C-alpha cells in the first residue's frame, strides 16, 4: 500500500485530533461561569495553586492566541485539569484507572461482533428470502432498535437475578480472596460475560444488517454474473467475489459508526456497574465535574479517530483502487 494513501489518512487523523482539542478549548471557555469559578469550585485549591493555574491557563491574557496556545500546550503535556469531585486529583489520573476496563469490554465486544456479525450478514444477504434470513433479519432488527443498556438490563434480570448464573455488578467480586491467579481470572470472566454479551449482541445486530445490505447490493453487480457464467459454485462466488467487495462499504460504515456506538458501550457499564469510562461519565455528570467530562470526551474522541485510522488501513488492504 502506498505511503501516500497512509500519509493522507494519518494527516487527516492528526487534523481531526487538533480540531477536537480546539473544540474542547471552546467548550471549556463556554462553560457556565468563568474559568475562575471553575477553579474556585475546587475546595482543595489554595491561593497559590489558583494563581499558578491561572498563569498556566493564561487567564489574564487575551483569549486568542495566548489562552488557546496555553490550553493546547498544557493538554499536550498531559495536563487535563483537575477533577471537582475527586478533590483536585488530576483528570488524567482519574480517567487513567478507568480506561482499561472499558477497553477490555468494548474491544472484545467489537472483535466478537465484527466476526459474528459480518458472517451472519453475508450469509443472510446471499441466501436472501429463506426462513433463516427472515428470522435472522428480524432478530437483528430488534437488536438494532434496542439501546444496548436495555439489553443489558434484560440480560441481567434473567441470567443474574433470576437464574443466578452470573454476578450482578462489578468487575471482580469485592473483598474475595483468590486461591490462584486462575481463580481470579475466572472470577473476572464471570463478571465480564453479561456486559460483554450486551455489547456484542447490540453490535452484531448492527453489523449484520450492514453486511447484509452490502452483500445484497454486491450480488447485483455484473462481475457476480460473470462468476456464475464461469460455472463456479455459490459458496465460492460468495467467498471469493461477493464478500471481498461487500466488505468495502461495510468497513467504512463500521469506522463511521464508532462515534455513535461509544454511547451504547459506555451506558452498558452503568447497568453492570463495570468500573470503566461509562460509569465515570455518569458519576461526573451527576457531580457536574466538567474537567473530567471534557477529559473523557477528549480520550474517547482520540480513540475513535485512531480506530477510524485503523479502519482506513484495513480498507487500503481490501481495495486496490484507493492505493494508487
Amino acid at each position, binding site marked *: 500500500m502506498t505511503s501516500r494513501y497512509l500519509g493522507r489518512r494519518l494527516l487527516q487523523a492528526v487534523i481531526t485530533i487538533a480540531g477536537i482539542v480546539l473544540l474542547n478549548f471552546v467548550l471549556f471557555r463556554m462553560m457556565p461561569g468563568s474559568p475562575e469559578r471553575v477553579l474556585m469550585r475546587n475546595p482543595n485549591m489554595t491561593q497559590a495553586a489558583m494563581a499558578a493555574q491561572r498563569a498556566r491557563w493564561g487567564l489574564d491574557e487575551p483569549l486568542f492566541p495566548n489562552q488557546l496556545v496555553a490550553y493546547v500546550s498544557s493538554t499536550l503535556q498531559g495536563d487535563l485539569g483537575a477533577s471537582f469531585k475527586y478533590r483536585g486529583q488530576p483528570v488524567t489520573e482519574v480517567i487513567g484507572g478507568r480506561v482499561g476496563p472499558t477497553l477490555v469490554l468494548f474491544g472484545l465486544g467489537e472483535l466478537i461482533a465484527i466476526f459474528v456479525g459480518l458472517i451472519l450478514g453475508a450469509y443472510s444477504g446471499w441466501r436472501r428470502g429463506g426462513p433463516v434470513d427472515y428470522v435472522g433479519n428480524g432478530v437483528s432488527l430488534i437488536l438494532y432498535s*434496542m*439501546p*444496548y443498556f436495555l439489553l443489558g438490563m434484560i440480560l441481567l434480570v434473567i441470567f443474574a437475578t433470576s437464574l443466578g448464573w452470573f454476578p450482578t455488578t462489578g468487575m471482580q467480586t469485592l473483598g474475595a480472596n483468590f486461591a490462584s491467579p486462575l481463580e481470579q481470572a475466572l472470577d473476572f470472566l464471570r463478571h465480564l460475560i453479561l456486559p460483554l454479551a450486551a455489547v456484542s449482541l*447490540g453490535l452484531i445486530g*448492527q453489523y449484520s444488517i*450492514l453486511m447484509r445490505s452490502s452483500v445484497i447490493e454486491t450480488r447485483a*453487480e*455484473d*462481475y457476480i*454474473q*460473470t*462468476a*456464475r*457464467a*464461469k*460455472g*463456479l*459454485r455459490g459458496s*465460492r462466488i460468495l467467498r*471469493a*467475489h461477493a464478500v*471481498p*467487495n461487500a466488505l*468495502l462499504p461495510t468497513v467504512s*460504515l463500521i469506522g463511521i*459508526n464508532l462515534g*455513535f*456506538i*461509544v*454511547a*451504547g458501550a459506555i451506558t452498558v457499564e452503568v447497568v453492570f456497574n463495570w468500573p470503566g469510562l461509562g460509569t465515570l461519565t455518569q458519576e461526573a455528570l451527576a457531580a457536574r465535574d466538567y474537567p473530567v467530562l471534557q477529559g473523557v470526551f477528549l480520550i474517547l474522541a482520540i480513540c475513535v479517530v485512531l480506530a477510524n485510522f485503523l479502519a482506513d488501513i484495513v480498507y487500503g488492504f*481490501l*481495495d*486496490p*483502487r484507493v492505493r*494508487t
Partner: protein
Amino acid sequence: MSAPIGDPVAGRRERTLPKGADPDAPLLVVDGLTTHFDLDGATVHAVDDVSFTLRDGEALGLAGESGCGKTTTALSLVKLLPPNARIVSGSVRMFGVDLVPRSEDGLRRYRWREISIVFQGAMNALNPVRRVRDQIAEPIVQRLQLSEDEARSRAEALLERVGIPKARGSAYPHELSGGMRQRAMIAMALACDPAIVIGDEPTTALDVMVQAQVLELLEDLRAELGLSLILITHDLSVIAETCDRVLIMYAGRVAEEGPVRRVFALPRHPYTQMLLRAFPNIHAERRTLGVVRGSPPDLRTPPPGCRFHPRCPLAIEPCRETVPPETTFADAVRVACHLYPPGSDGTQVAVPIEQISAEPAGVAEPARAAEPAGPAGSPAAAGGGR
C-alpha cells in the same frame, strides 16, 4: 507469438465431451426457445419461439434493437437468467443434450467449459479487487482442477495470446485501458477451451480503433482454435465484417436469418430492410439515412400477429392476426413474414424508400419518455446514540 492452447484444427477439435454428449450431433440446436420475465405482477414476453443452429467453427451474429431479446436469448442458453425469469418452452441442444431441463448442478459442466461469455463493459464484469491474472486462472483451477501454478502459467499464456504482456497480468482491472480489459475478458473466456464463445456487445463501449483490434483478435482466435462464435450486437457493420450468418431479432422473435452476404445484399423482411437503410455505408452513394420510425412494443402486451406490424409500412391484413410462419428459401435465408409465405419464390418485396422514413400507418401513440425517476440516493443508517 502464441502458445498453443487448443489443438488448432478446423471443424470439431479433439476434446473431451461432457457425459451423454453425442459426437456426431450438431454443435448447438436451439428450437422454439421461449423465455418470460415476471415483473411487478406482469409477464414480459422477452423471447418467443426462437430457433437457430450453430455449427462448428461458425460465427453467428445476433442483431436487433435494444430490448429485442438478443441478450436474453444468449443467456438462456446456459440459463444464466435472473430469478424472475423462466424458460417457458423450447430446447437448447448442445451435442444433442438438451440443457433446458437440467438443474443448476447439471448445467454447470457446460458453463465456461463448453459455452463461455465475453460480457459488455469489462470494467463492471471484472471483479475490481482481484488481479486480472487471477480471475483468468480462477476457472482453470476451479473447473479444470489444475494446480494454482499451472493455472497461472496458462493464464499468462492466454494474456500473451490476446496481446497483453505477461507482466500486466498482475494488474487490477482499473489499471488497464478499456481495450485491454476487453481483451482480458476474451482471454478469460478462452480459459477452459470452450466450444462456443458468446460475445455480448463486446466492442460497443470501445472506440473505433480499439474495436477493430478486438474484432481482428476474435477472428484470429476463431481461425486458430476452431471456435464457434455468437456475436450479439446492434451494430450491423460488425456483423458484416466478422460473421458467417446473421440472425435478426425483433421484439423477441426471429425476423430473418441467413448467410450474412446474402441477407445484407437482399434483405427480405421489411424490418431488415429498414435496419440496413439506417446504417451509413461508406461505399454507397450519398443518401439520406432512413430512420426506423416508432419504437419497439411493450413486451408485456405484445401486439397480436406479427409484432412488427404496427411499424411496418407493408403490413397486410394477416399481419395483424396471425403469427407469420417461417419460410426457408433456396439461398439458405429464413424469413418470418407474411409477404414471404411458404411456397413463395423468395423475390424481395422492397419497401419503397419514401416509406422507410414515413410515419407508419395505424401505429399506436408513440411512447412518451417516462417521468424522471425518483431520487437515487439511499439513506444509510441515520445513526444517533443508543
